[in-house]
Each structure stands twice: as C-alpha cells, then as structure tokens.
C-alpha cells in the first residue's frame, strides 16, 4: 500500500513546493493551465540540456576514474604497507599478526563496497518515481487551488471558517518547513561543490549532489558529504589529512547553515522541540524507512498545526482566549 501511495505523496509534495511560483505568476493575471504547461516545457528543455551536459561530465568522470584507478590502488597499498610498518613498530606484534589485522580491516571495507550495488538497487523504485512524480504532480499543479476550493464547497457552510483556519495553519507550518529544507539543500549542494573543487577532490559534482539530496533528511547532508567526500579524498590522495580537510569543509558548511541559514528559515518556520524533532525522525525511519525519514518532520508539522487549531477552537469556545482590548473606560473622542 505504501509503495502505491509513495508516488502520489511525493507528487503532492512536488506540486506543493512549486505552487507558490505558479500562484505568484497567477497573481499577474496569467492562466494556471498555460503557466503549468509552459513551466513544464521550459523545465523539459532545461533538463535535456542539463542531461546533455551531465552525460558528457559523467562519461568524463568515469574515464577519469578508470584512468586513475591503478594509481588510487597503489596509494591504498602504499598506505596499507606504511600502516603495517607503523603498527609493527608501535605494538609488540609479529609482522604476520599486523598484516592479518590490516587484511581484516581492508577486507571488511571491500565487503561493504561490494554490498553497495545491492543498496543502490533498493533505490531503483525511487528512480522510477522520478518520472512518475512530475507526471502526477502536473495534474496536482493544474488543479491547484481548485482542489482546496472544492473541499471548502463540500464542507458544511457553518464550518467553512474553521476548515480554512485548519488548512491555513497547515499551509503555514508545512510550506515554510519545506521551502526552508529546499533552501538548505541548494546551499549545501553549491557550497560543497565549490569547496570540493577548491580542495581538488575528484567527482565533486556527484558528491555535492549526493550531499544536497541527503540534506532533505535533517542533519544527514553534511554527514553524507563528509563520509563520501572524505572517503574519496583519502582514496585519491592516500592521506588522512586530505580526508580531514574534506571533513572540516562539511563541518564548516554545517556550522554556516546553523549560523546563517537556520535563523532566517526558523523565523517563519514551525518550531518543534528538539526532542519532538528527534522522536519524529526515529518514528518515521522505524515505520516507513527512508520515506519515513523524508516525511517525518512535515508530518510532525501537520500534527502540531492540528493540535494548535484544536486548542484554539477549544479555548475560543470556552472563552479561554484573550478577548478584545478593553477600552471601555476611555470615552470615544
């Protein structure tokens, strides 16, 4: 059931994120249907150009990797030999024991690397959604506010104001969070790409894209970037200091995000207690896997909006909310 609903949920999120752009153009008197079609055609043209560019870049990076692979391997062997010497010098171990320890460590790493393709295969259904999501999202975007207006029309007339109140609160909480996350993902992608290029790390674009995409799950972006980028730097240069430079880069990006971006985003975003934030992430991951991690915070935002609206209704009905300003003592002049 989850797999059937996944593309629809992703498409709804896709349309929801793009909707403000369409609404902005609509506020200038343009027709929604034409705007959406025009937007899709433009995106298609840009996508095809990007594909052409990325294809050549990917081929170039693959050729580069193929050409440099023997050198990288030599680097790793050199590093392993150096570590063996160090290990035998520092510890009172016979050379064959040190060799065995290193073989076990490197063998474990290679085993993990061999498992990587099977992990990648689990992402294939998500790649299939990459075509399906914009297709379904097209219809969501086309309908736009008509769907909401239809719901309002169906709602019993006396509860229309309450229904709009609820929708409005969810829209505020969810919209600000999703737009904030997208801003962070874009900033992390650009910053990590520039940083990796400056550090002369190979496959900078792939690592930057991976880091940016991972940052859709809170806190994951910088960690993935540091791990993959650091691994790449170590593989490429064969030194720990190169890997540490990349790790430092991603720590810097994470700090810059926390200092410069988060205050701006959080100003308009929903405020979740860090414990609630973590609980949502753990529950989401546990119940729905990667998709759960992706949608845990938006779901928590909706839940928080529901609680806030329910409390607002209850307090208004019971007269608990603050009333009108009392200026009765002063005559009108």
């Amino acid at each position, binding site marked *: 059931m989850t797999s059937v609903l996944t593309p629809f949920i992703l498409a709804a999120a896709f349309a929801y994120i793009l909707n403000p752009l369409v*609404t902005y153009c*609509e*506020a*200038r*008197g*343009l*027709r*929604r249907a*034409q705007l959406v079609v025009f937007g899709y055609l433009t995106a298609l043209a840009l996508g095809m150009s990007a594909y052409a560019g990325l294809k050549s870049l990917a081929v170039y990076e693959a050729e580069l990797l193929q050409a440099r692979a023997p050198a990288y391997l030599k680097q790793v062997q050199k590093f392993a030999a150096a570590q063996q010497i160090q290990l035998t010098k520092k510890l009172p171990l016979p050379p064959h024991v040190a060799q065995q320890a290193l073989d076990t460590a490197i063998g474990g790493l290679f085993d993990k690397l061999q498992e990587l393709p099977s992990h990648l295969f689990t992402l294939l259904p998500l790649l299939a959604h990459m075509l399906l999501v914009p297709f379904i999202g097209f219809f969501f975007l086309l309908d736009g506010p008509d769907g*909401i*207006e239809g719901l*309002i*029309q169906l709602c019993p*007339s*006396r509860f*229309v*104001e*309450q229904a*709009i*109140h609820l929708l*409005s*609160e969810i829209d*505020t909480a969810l919209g600000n969070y999703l737009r904030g996350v997208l801003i962070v993902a874009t900033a992390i992608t650009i910053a990590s790409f520039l940083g990796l290029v400056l550090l002369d790390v190979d496959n900078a674009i792939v690592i930057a894209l991976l880091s940016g995409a991972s940052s859709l799950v809170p806190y994951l972006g910088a960690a993935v970037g540091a791990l993959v980028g650091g691994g790449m730097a170590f593989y490429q240069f064969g030194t720990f200091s190169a890997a540490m430079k990349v790790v430092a880069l991603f720590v810097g990006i994470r700090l810059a995000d926390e200092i410069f971006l988060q205050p701006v985003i959080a100003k308009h975003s929903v405020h979740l207690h860090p414990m609630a934030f973590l609980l949502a992430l753990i529950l989401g991951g546990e119940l729905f896997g990667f998709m759960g991690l992706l949608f845990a915070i938006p779901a928590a935002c909706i839940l928080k909006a529901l609680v806030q609206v329910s409390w*607002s*209704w209850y307090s*208004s*009905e019971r007269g608990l*909310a603050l*009333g*009108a300003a009392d200026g009765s003592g002063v005559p*009108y002049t």
Partner: protein
Amino acid sequence: MSALKSLKRWFIDPNFSRKKQFLRSLEIFKDLRDGDLGHLVAALHSRSYREGEVVFVEGDIGRALFILESGGVDLTRHGADGKPAPLYSLKPGDFFGEMALLESLPRTATATATQKTHLHLLYKSKLDALLHGEPRIGVTIMSHLARLLSARLRRMNVDRTLVTSKND
C-alpha cells in the same frame, strides 16, 4: 500584431480580471494598485451558498471577512425574546464579518443566504501574511477598517447622546 494579441488572450485569465475589477469597485480595496489586487485575488477563497444556507451563526468564533459578489445575505440577531430580529440585508458589493480580521471573538449576528449567493472569504491569517509579505496591501485594508470602525463608533456615540438627551 494580431498573433501577439491572441497569444496574450491565451495567457491572460479573463476570470481573474473580472475578480480584480469586482474588488476594485469595493470601498475597502479601492486604493489598491493593480498588482496589489492580483495578490489579493490569490489570497481570497470563494464559496457558493444555496438559498437559506447559513453562512455563520451568532456566537460562532469569527475568523474571516466575507465579500458578497452575487446574491443576497440577511443578518439577524436574537432579541431579548429569543426570536431572531432582522438587522440588515446585504447586497452585492457589501462586505461583512470584518471584525474577525481584528479579533477572534464570537459573531454578533447570524448571516443567512437569501438566494443563490457567491461569497469571497478573506481569512485572517491570509491578511496577516499580506501584512508581512505585501505591507502596502495589508496597511491599506487595515486603514480602511480603522476608518470604518471609527465612523461606526462616532455614529454610535451620536445615537447614544441623542437617546440620553431625549430621556433627560
């Protein structure tokens, strides 16, 4: 030239222009610029009501301003005898429930559609968003609301003075 015109016609939404024209004709929005009205149209919700359908009930918590585009709405209030007494009949172009934009307090009257009616709703949080995002629009609307309330208060003061002097 004609091709350009037909392309423009293909892109421009006539329904949107009609809504803007309607809003411009209202006292509360008359000072808004063309672009501002566009943002306002995007912020409005619409709903159609059948004859006799209740828009809101006296005592309900108000959260939106209603603008009557077509049809008719009667405002009634429960009197001391418990029966609803007619207060006012609204015609197209009138707006009501504006106090909800300032405070979330119970409605002081019941609004009922007297015929097939089309209403636009400006929800409080949308106005708040306009106040922050497009301050010109929010300030213009708030300024009109303040003038409206001031006029009502002044009229009420005059009425009360008249009643007091009659009693004396």
